[in-house]
């Protein structure tokens, strides 16, 4: 059971820092959907904290819109619920991979509570939003207070998560927002497998984005990011390089997918994950390219990695 001396709901970022600085051991909470199940028998057991500091209502952590200073970028408050991935009109139009990710993320109800910032800060190796956001070249902004002034730093998501449950966030830093590419012209796909459809920890998950050049035969831009098959989510740079500028054919997609087979570094079910991963890459690319306007037939295959 999770218990605490105080539960604070600060109205401003300054009040949130007051709480964090004044109460050593205080913990930031947003949606609480990971925190409460964690403090139960079989996981952390009974946990007592000095305070929970609920940042989900802070104005600085709200809102989704086009970034005013960076053209072609979307700005999203860290307390944005995952449900917005699916329902926010701007994201539906400019970041469709997020909606495709969201339908696989926990369930309808948890998506109303769970926040994008929480999913990144918790840095579970199976955090489903991570591959989609990596593929969108997401940067995260962290706020801290020094000598009474609130300062920010911004870093790429690819550097932010450094291991299972480990990030570059310092204990007195609050993730305030994300910035990601607006990609209205890309086809998008998200793949996930677990023991069931809803409410399941990913065994393999993956996001793919693709855009065609004006001839509509060559791949102008492609982005693939994978999750749940290693300690941290990653972009498949080599696969992306292999495909960028190339004509998209079934054979080339097959060859590209096979490049990823050594990426599986999880502790269990490696053979299964290799098989699924390469198939997911191929299927996701086919789907993303179809949305971008190019239908490709997959080359038939037998199981290869089990």
């Amino acid at each position, binding site marked *: 059971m999770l218990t605490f001396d105080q539960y604070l709901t600060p109205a401003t970022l300054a009040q949130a820092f007051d709480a964090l600085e004044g109460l050593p*051991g205080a913990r930031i909470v947003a949606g*609480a959907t990971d925190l409460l199940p964690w403090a139960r028998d079989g996981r952390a057991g009974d946990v007592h904290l000095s305070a929970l500091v609920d940042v989900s209502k802070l104005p600085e952590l709200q809102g989704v819109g086009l970034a005013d200073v960076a053209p072609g970028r979307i700005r999203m408050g860290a307390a944005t619920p995952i449900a917005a991935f699916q329902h926010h009109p701007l994201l539906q139009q400019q970041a*469709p991979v997020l909606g495709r990710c969201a339908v696989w993320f926990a369930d*309808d*109800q948890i998506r109303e509570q769970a926040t994008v910032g929480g999913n990144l800060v918790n840095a579970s190796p199976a955090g489903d939003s991570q591959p989609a956001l990596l593929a969108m070249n997401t940067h995260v902004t962290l706020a801290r207070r020094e000598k009474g002034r609130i300062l920010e730093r911004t870093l790429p998501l690819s550097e932010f998560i450094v291991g299972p449950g480990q990030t570059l966030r310092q204990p007195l830093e609050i993730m305030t927002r994300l910035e990601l590419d607006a990609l209205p012209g890309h*086809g998008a796909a998200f793949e996930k497998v677990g023991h069931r459809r*809803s409410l399941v920890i990913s065994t393999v998950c993956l996001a793919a984005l693709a855009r065609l050049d004006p001839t509509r035969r060559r791949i102008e831009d492609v982005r693939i990011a994978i999750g749940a098959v290693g300690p941290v989510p990653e972009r498949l740079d080599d696969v992306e390089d292999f495909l960028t500028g190339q004509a998209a054919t079934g054979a080339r997609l097959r060859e590209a997918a096979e490049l990823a087979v050594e990426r599986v570094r999880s502790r269990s079910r490696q053979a299964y994950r290799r098989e699924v991963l390469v198939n997911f890459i191929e299927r996701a690319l086919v789907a993303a390219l*179809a949305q971008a306007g190019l*239908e490709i037939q997959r080359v038939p295959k037998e199981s290869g990695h089990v």
Partner: protein
Amino acid sequence: MSEPVSGCQAPVDGRHPMTEISATVNGRKVTRSVPNHYRLIDFVREELKLTGNKEGCGAGECGTCSMFVDGKLVKSCLTPVQKIQGATVETVDDLDRDQGMTVLQRAFHKCGASQCGYCIPGMVMAATSTLRRNPAAGLDEIKEGLGGNICRCTGYQKILDAVQLARDVLNGSRPESALDEDAGTSFIGHSTRRLDAPGKVTGAIKYAADLWMANMLHLQVLRSPHPHARIVRIDASKARRLPGVECVLTCDDVPGVDNFGVFIEDQPIMARGVVRYVGEAVAAVAAETVDIARAAVKLIEIHYEVLPGLFDPEEAMRPGAVQLHAHAADNICKHTRIRKGDVDAALAAADLVVEETYRTAPIEHAYLEPEAGLAYVEADGCVAVHSPSQNITHHRHMLAKILGRPINKVRMIMSTVGGGFGGKEDMIYQGMLALAAIKTRRPVRYVFTREESFIASAKRHPFTIRYTMGLQRDGRITATRMVMVSDGGAYAMSTPGVMNKSAILGPGPYAVPNVWVDAIGVYTNNTPSGAMRAFGAFQSEFATEAHLDLCAQRLGMDPVALRMVNLMRDGATTHTRQQLDRVLAVDCLQAAVAAAGWDAGVPHRQGLGQAPRSDLGGTGTRAPCTLGARLAPMAAAEPAAATVPAK
């Protein structure tokens, strides 16, 4: 997640800081002061006594606690109560706004979409949310909307039927009369509504955890962390001194003959001198609040002398193994034997002998309602226990002996059972409850957490089955030998009955002249095994049917043809020499084969390079649920007509 900072400690007296919460719940403004660690589910159930929504898992997995907060459906077990400050909450209790039942609830009633009913409040809420969002939701969207809700009695089809019926009635495409009970002169062949369904679809029916009495105490249990240990000393003095603690119970408080069990009464209500599995009850506390009871449990000091444990039934039977119970030589709890004909001779004469070993796993019932009970002493001195017991009469007899009182001073009341599947046949907590009520003269309630239910309750018996079968070339089985060893765990529970049934039904509905079955249930220091759906027959029949497929492959036969040759027919004699009059096994298999569109042939035809089966994935095969029914169409992609086929 990071580790908590040390030096910060929960209140040792179990008295947590309070927080004042104001919200609008079911249209009524409420302001209440509650412990600050309460979640929304605690606020609604424990403080407001709105018990329609249940707690099934406490971890956001099951959805029976789903309720609306400011119009959005959330898991109330994942919602700190502070998040509803100033918000509007809707629970299932008043979903109908005092209008009887909503159309959805009436549709659930009509379609029989409630069995145990424990998941149904959440299902109704999730369905309500789905149809509020999109009154025209299709089946895939409904499935997605209900994706966060688990039913354990397997009623999904009826639930989906009900949501679609409600949708159609609400949008006028089906008349409201579609919600009425089907007219019919006979119950047979007609859909008949369940009598208890209205109470279940509205959340009005009370399960044990929903019961509340004035002056009620709360029980919590200290459980063994060791699989096998001697209890050297129990020091409960600190717990007894804690304000708010009304009693601390150990085996020393049991007045009568302290043993229970379905077949062999070998288990004390709390460990007596020795613990035999992780999770065994050792001591119990009844206190004014659950928090105080939990705090008191932590103050009980137990000194254990850890003993070597037995975790494998084969090892447990070996000479020299630690003996776990005085009455069970070689740790054998039950050995059931069937001997018919001369198996050795038949195997020697067989055209084909096939041997294989099969293993099944222990599994948890995971009924959606964790164990719970309420006990009190009535004015005439009779102790009453409400619990979702699957065996109240037997429990009553055992409890009378344990409490050392006449049977007319013990009353067992079966509360609505939120799923049992055999797992609630064992009286693993009612004894502690009754004793606490007698000691304190106050009502006492005990509600398991999901984790506690997993750790303390029986599992399905895991089996290792060594199978030898002799057959003629035409497929006729001439001999069956099954040697089955099963891990019964620390106490007998239903092991003797499970061994009997696994043996009697194991060789299957086949006419076999020579049969040898050993079913051996063994004591170990694992979680006890007990009754679970099919009571042992599943494990042994799984082996038999898997083995017949293997034999069909060896014989080059169609697996159905092999079974047709061997199925019992009218006048057959069973393995235990019961004469059967009429046997419909052949008719049954024929009907199944016809319904499945069975493509006859050897089972391994693709491996032989032959054409693959034609009966897979055809009509009648349900398509997998693909998520994304509500995704907006791609905004930027060109219209489909403009796509260019690739070379």
